[in-house]
């Protein structure tokens, strides 16, 4: 059977420069994301966390490939409601993300944000936005800030890049087009990363848009747009590295469309009845983690024992995160009204 799935030609890894250390780092980050999300599902069904919880399984190569090509703690990241794994890649400790999901004071947003509102000033994670597309202008503003700091305030070190993650559904929203226009106009150090997982809840991408190839929408703004295999961390990383270099050099923004897939329903409350078993199988076979594990062993960058050791280490880390989240204090009720306004 000939598949009708849209994919891009396989990424040629010949030119990839990757040493063992970085290879293991990328692998570990993806495993961290996957393991964390699996644990979330478990905790959700055990009644430990509430509300809408959107998991990222299947899309790990995008978060890892982009964020791990940036400077941790210096560059900016914005996400959506599907934000746990972007937070982890940006360096927010798993225990702080887990504690946030448990609504605890030790959470990265002090239990006030929840699953869809992860924030960390320390890691320049600007959110966690629950409304579709509203993070795009915020990220664009952070990029404007870097340009402003350099050109107006004379700070030569202000070369931070801002990466903004959002979905195929968001790419039909006005804020996407408005921001592409402004970022290209002012040559802002921006990377717009569309994670095209083919679905916006139950709305199939090609039922929602007149031009399903989202990366092409960059061209009308005179902006570079690229499509990448979002199930291949090395492909994403290569595209991100180019985009980061372009942004830092003051040459303006890039739109990266990563073709990817979520392995679970839209949220843990979604019965996920619309997506066909064939489609799910097709994408499951492209699992970015097993694929990268194969690459690492085939290229003698890691042994399967080393990878297993990483898996175990992460498992351990997640267990500890849950323990901490569980044993952490609830927020102090006397601080219910804290954080409305800035404190002196």
């Amino acid at each position, binding site marked *: 059977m000939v598949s009708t799935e849209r994919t891009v030609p396989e990424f040629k890894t010949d030119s990839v420069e990757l040493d063992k250390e970085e290879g293991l780092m990328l692998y570990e980050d993806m495993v961290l994301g996957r393991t964390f999300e699996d644990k979330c599902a478990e905790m959700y069904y055990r009644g430990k966390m509430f509300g809408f919880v959107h998991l990222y399984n299947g899309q790990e190569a995008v978060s890892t490939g982009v964020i791990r090509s940036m400077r941790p703690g210096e560059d900016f990241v914005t996400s959506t409601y599907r934000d746990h794994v972007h937070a982890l890649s940006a360096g927010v400790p798993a225990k702080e993300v887990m504690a946030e999901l448990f609504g605890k004071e030790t959470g990265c947003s002090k239990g006030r944000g929840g699953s869809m509102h992860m*924030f960390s000033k320390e890691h320049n994670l600007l*959110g966690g936005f*629950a409304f579709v597309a509203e993070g795009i202008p*915020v990220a*664009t*503003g952070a990029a404007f800030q870097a340009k402003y700091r350099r050109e107006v305030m004379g700070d030569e070190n202000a070369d931070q890049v801002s990466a903004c993650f959002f979905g195929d559904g968001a790419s039909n929203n006005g804020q996407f087009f408005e*921001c592409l*226009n402004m970022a290209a106009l002012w040559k802002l150090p921006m990377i717009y990363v569309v994670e095209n997982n083919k679905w916006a809840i139950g709305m199939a991408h090609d039922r929602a848009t007149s031009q399903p190839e989202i990366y092409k929408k960059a061209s009308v703004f005179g902006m570079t747009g690229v499509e990448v295999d979002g199930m291949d961390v090395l492909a994403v990383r290569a595209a991100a590295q180019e985009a980061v270099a372009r942004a830092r050099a003051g040459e303006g923004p890039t739109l990266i469309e990563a073709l990817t897939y979520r392995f679970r329903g839209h949220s843990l409350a979604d019965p996920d009845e619309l997506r066909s078993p064939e489609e799910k199988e097709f994408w499951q076979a492209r699992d970015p983690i097993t694929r990268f594990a194969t690459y690492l062993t085939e290229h003698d960058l890691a042994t399967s024992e080393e990878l297993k050791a990483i898996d175990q280490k992460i498992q351990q880390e997640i267990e500890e995160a849950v323990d901490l989240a569980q044993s952490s204090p609830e927020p102090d009720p006397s601080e219910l009204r804290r954080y*409305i306004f800035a404190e002196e």
Partner: protein
Amino acid sequence: MAETLFFNALRQATDEEMARDSSVFVLGEDVGHYGGSYKVTKDLYKKYGDLRLLDTPIAENSFTGMAVGAAMTGLRPIVEGMNMGFLLLAFNQIANNAGMLRYTSGGNFTIPMVIRGPGGVGRQLGAEHSQRLEAYFQAVPGLKIVACSTPYNAKGLLKAAIRDENPVLFFEHVLLYNLKENLPDHEYIVPLDRAEVVRPGKDVTILTYSRMRHHVMQALKTLEKQGYDPEVIDLISLKPLDFETIGASIRKTHRVIIVEECMKTGGIGAELVASINDRFFDELDAPVVRLSSQDIPTPYNGMLERLTIIQPPQIAEAVEKLVEGRI
């Protein structure tokens, strides 16, 4: 002392704060080369350049969101709404992100930004350009809402708003830009959170703001002649309300009239009445009187428009009735 027009007072405030702090910048439609729809930023781009007077495309939600992102990362943006009504298109960024993000982030981020521009009912501008968004926005947590009314307070309040660490919605009024007043030569700041006692008195407390302050003062000419002695308070801060000043006045007069330009339903006055009942019910000798605009889209026709908003004779009449104990 120099005689200064209202819009120039705002311009001076912006200029002084931009000179004082290089992280302050203005963005919005036509704020740069054109100088702002009411000339508040006229020629500032010549002094500060195109990045600090950033002419944006007509994309209110996105440029307001950009200001939020810039504020989160250390700048102090001033968003000019060409007309505050247009910021209905930025409602999401103002409410969810400017207003609530500090809280949802558990205090990770502060959002020092000002959103300012002309609001209110002008002269036959039609319904869409005659909005009083302060009423729509007052329920948003995390926002400060300020309305200026004279060249003096406009300048001092705008400077305070720019220095504030919180998002401030700053309402000017389309019909006040050409008011004149002698302003001090020295620098001054007017605190954001204090109501202004415009005229002390003992008969009745009149709570008002923005252009309606001037309608009240108009009515006062007649009332004074008739021997009435009302206390007039310009609320200035519509959120949070200055209950210290309001309460002190009510303890003195025991009667309250609210004069506002927003519509009656869900207006600033509605919130005031409820809060006054909560806090000062025992002080009241009569129910609080609310003079608000009609609950209708502002009509274009001049006569109908005048009937829509409160006029000075209605204020005078309400004072007479209330003080004579007829209501």
